């Protein structure tokens, strides 16, 4: 269900509830898509926090993969690179693997495009599914998550951010819009 964020119930942004919902949806998706010994990869920073929780809940055997997409961003020439980019840690063998890609908030889709580019530089997975804690409106490219904890609409100028790692909380803030 997609909810306008200003009309949402008070507990809508409760991270443990969103994680519960995401876990249920993800387990169902793993069965539906016949994922075999999946490899979970979290996108730094918020996606890794969410992935750590799900990795434990799903009791996956493979270590969690970590992805930093800073060097794959498409807005490099506008905003430059942030110093102190942490290295990505992906397993040596991506070819033929089932991958669960995890992020905190799905917004424009550009982060996911960058993440997929980086993953495919390392090999050719059998399939990749995308799971996010929260999907918001504002897609700019034809990508969307396969499952999420919840979906919402934000007012113009609003943005949502996961703060963590202990505890994980979602914060909505309003930034001035241009024009």
């Amino acid at each position, binding site marked *: 269900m997609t909810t306008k964020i200003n009309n949402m119930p008070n507990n809508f942004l409760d991270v443990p509830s969103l994680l519960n919902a995401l876990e249920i949806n993800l387990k169902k998706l793993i069965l539906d898509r016949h994922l075999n010994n999946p490899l979970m990869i979290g996108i730094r920073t918020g996606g890794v926090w969410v992935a750590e929780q799900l990795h434990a809940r799903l009791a996956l055997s493979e270590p969690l993969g970590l992805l930093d997409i800073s060097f794959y961003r498409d807005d490099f*020439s506008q905003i430059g690179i942030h110093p102190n980019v942490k290295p990505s840690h992906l397993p040596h063998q991506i070819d033929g693997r089932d991958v669960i890609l995890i992020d905190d908030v799905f917004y424009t889709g550009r982060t996911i495009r960058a993440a997929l580019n980086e993953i495919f530089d390392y090999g050719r997975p059998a399939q990749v599914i995308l799971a996010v804690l929260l999907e918001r409106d504002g897609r700019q490219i034809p990508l969307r998550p396969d499952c999420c904890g919840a979906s919402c609409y934000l007012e113009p100028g609003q943005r949502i951010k996961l703060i963590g790692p202990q505890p994980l909380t979602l914060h909505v803030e309003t930034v001035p819009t241009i024009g």
Partner: protein
Amino acid sequence: MTTNVQLNAEGKLKHFLTIDGLSRALLTEILDTAESFAAMAGNQVKKVPLLRGKTIVNLFFENSTRTRTTFELAAKRLSADVLNMNIATSSTSKGESLLDTIRNLEAMHVDMFVVRHALSGAAHFMAQNTAPHISVINAGDGQHAHPTQAMLDMFTIRQKKPDLSRLRVAIIGDILHSRVARSQILALNTLGVAEVRVIAPRTLLPAKVETLGVTVCHDLQAGLQDIDVIITLRLQKERMTSALLPSENEYYKCFGLTQSKLKLAKPDAIVMHPGPINRGVEIDSSVADGPQSVILQQVSNGIAVRMAVLSMAMQSTGETR
């Protein structure tokens, strides 16, 4: 407000010509960015798409092994296209001026020049005479500056000894002809080390060298006391136009870094050399290859530092002030 030709209107790096005039914050940003790229060296895939579609021209009017190859590798790891101009077989050897060479390469829609030239100020001249969208990186100009070498040295020092403020650094040898030493002194002082000490015979020191913010010593054995970082420099015989030294043997005896002299520095002192090494002239082989030497780490770090400089310069598309 800055008037530094190296910076764009937002104060970001546009050209990298000299350490002179750059802030500690900017030098630290270069080192931090290089840290991110250094971490990639262990990856299965060492290439990232940051500079895809950009064309970088390596214009080396002087010989080079490490600098040219690590610039080329850095550009390739950032996915840029690299053009290596072999000046010996180019039209420069037929008398084409530097400005005409620049104009012709600009007409090929290149994005960046990495230039090494025997004349001090050549890179600066190019930066001032090139199209606004093009960045110029100095890979060594005459006796003036070699800023990426200085930064990779700073990176190596910080890797081994993170608290720069406590360090005493000795630079030994041919300071007079060394663009590396000039850039190192500027970088070390900007980053705020405790002391930069130059150790050399009087004939191999520039006049009024103290004004660069260094202490001067003419005796290697006395000069190595309390030193954390030892930088040895190559004796630049090709730039010596008069008899500055009695002989190489005499120089080695007085200023060559040997195991016994190394013991006079702090026990955990590191030994550096920008290369190429003249073994048995400025440094003994057993020291160059010994446990305190970080000479090959300097070479590895050269790739990460140059990746940082190339990507930082290409991110600022605006005109310089």
